[in-house]
């Protein structure tokens, strides 16, 4: 007997896959955000050697396929460094690094979006470089970067689907499993696609909402 039909348990599987996808997406976005912003700060302080190194790594991560990065971490690292890397670990490392590279670019342009004269004025008032960054640049840069950040996160959600190739049981992998069992590709992949679509829309809506909230403070309110 072949279980070729859809069962109610499949819904649970899909929910589980969505959970893994969203969970890994949130974790790697958060790690990527922290690392990317740190890199941006390093660049702001113009630390010699470290700044060109970071720029180089970010360029390399941005201009190579995520799939190859995943293979390097999942197949290459264990062979070369004699480590044990589970699929989930490989996924977290790769996606975090990849997200960090893109966030670094956003962070750099956000910091540069703050006018030079503001920094000069703040320095003239005797603020230290850190105080300038913390109280003058950071609030404005945050408001500036929400738009590009949302677009990036929507994109990174789709990138997470690649981790199914190395065996993480995310939404795409659940789709592949269901597809193999039921042999109904149109229904399975349409449902999986819809779930990704809705999640992406949710992220975009959350970003837009947050942006209007942040922008409200930067608007000119009159004297």
């Amino acid at each position, binding site marked *: 007997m072949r279980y070729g039909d859809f069962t109610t348990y499949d819904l649970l599987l899909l929910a589980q896959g969505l959970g893994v996808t969203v969970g890994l997406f949130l974790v790697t976005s958060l790690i990527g955000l922290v690392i990317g912003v740190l890199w941006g700060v390093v660049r702001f302080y113009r630390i010699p050697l470290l700044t060109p190194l970071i720029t180089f790594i970010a*360029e*390399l991560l941005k*201009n*190579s*396929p*995520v*799939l*190859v*990065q995943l*293979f*390097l971490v999942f*197949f*290459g*690292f264990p*062979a*070369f*460094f*004699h480590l044990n890397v589970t699929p989930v670990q490989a996924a977290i490392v790769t996606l975090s690094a990849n997200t960090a590279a893109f966030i670094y670019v956003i962070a750099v342009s956000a910091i540069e979006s703050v006018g030079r004269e503001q920094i000069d004025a703040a320095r003239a008032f005797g603020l230290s470089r850190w105080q300038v960054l913390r109280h003058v640049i950071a609030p404005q840069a945050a408001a500036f970067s929400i738009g590009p950040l949302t677009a990036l996160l*929507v994109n990174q*959600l*789709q*990138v*997470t*689907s*690649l981790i*199914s*190739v190395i065996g993480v049981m995310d939404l*795409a992998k659940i*789709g*592949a499993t269901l*597809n193999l069992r039921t042999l*109904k*590709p*149109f229904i399975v*992949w*349409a449902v*999986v*696609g819809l779930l*990704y*679509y809705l999640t*992406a*829309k949710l992220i975009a809506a959350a970003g837009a909402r947050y942006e209007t909230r942040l922008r409200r403070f930067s608007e000119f309110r009159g004297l």
Partner: protein
Amino acid sequence: MRLDLTILAPYLGFLGQGAALTAVICLLSLAGAVVLGMLVAIARTSQTVWIRRLAFIYVDVFRNIPFIVQLFFFYYGLPEIGIYIDAITTGVIALSIAGGAYASDAIRSGILAIDNGILEAAEVSGLSKRVTFTRIVLPIALRTSVRPLGSVLINMILTSSILSTITVNELTGQAKIVASDTFRPFEVYAVLLVVYAALTWLVSIGISRLHKRLNRDLASEAA
């Protein structure tokens, strides 16, 4: 623990074949994406509401669903409805459709950026709507959108690595074979990462040159 790149020497020709297939796939898909993107851009700037809405839905759907899900949808789905085509063709079709969504945005913004005065001049000269569009609007729009179309191409090169999951032996697919042949995944994927980065870097330089050349008479406005 020793990095030994010489083990790759016997496989250079083999990897070259993969790179050639990647190039062919990307060029075919780029052509497909530009044609599709042009049609969709026309639809999105149309004056009929439902055509505009339909085109928007296409762009929205294909930009918000992971490429791997789209690819599996076509790869497993098409045989289901009696269309038997090989993996490479499926890959090119999927890349063209996904790329078309991005290309349409680039071309659309090129169309919207056209000065109204040019359109009025064409109207006054007695040119029909169709002639205005094919002889005036499209050439200008395509020319100004060379750079954004270039980033569509670069994205396509990176995305084409995903075709290795449906048995297409392009660059990443060949590298997978080499990695399992030599048991040196680290060397293989590290080199592959750098090769992809170098490839996209070269392409981006070429695009900048082309953009400058095509827009040399508008240097002052287009910069």
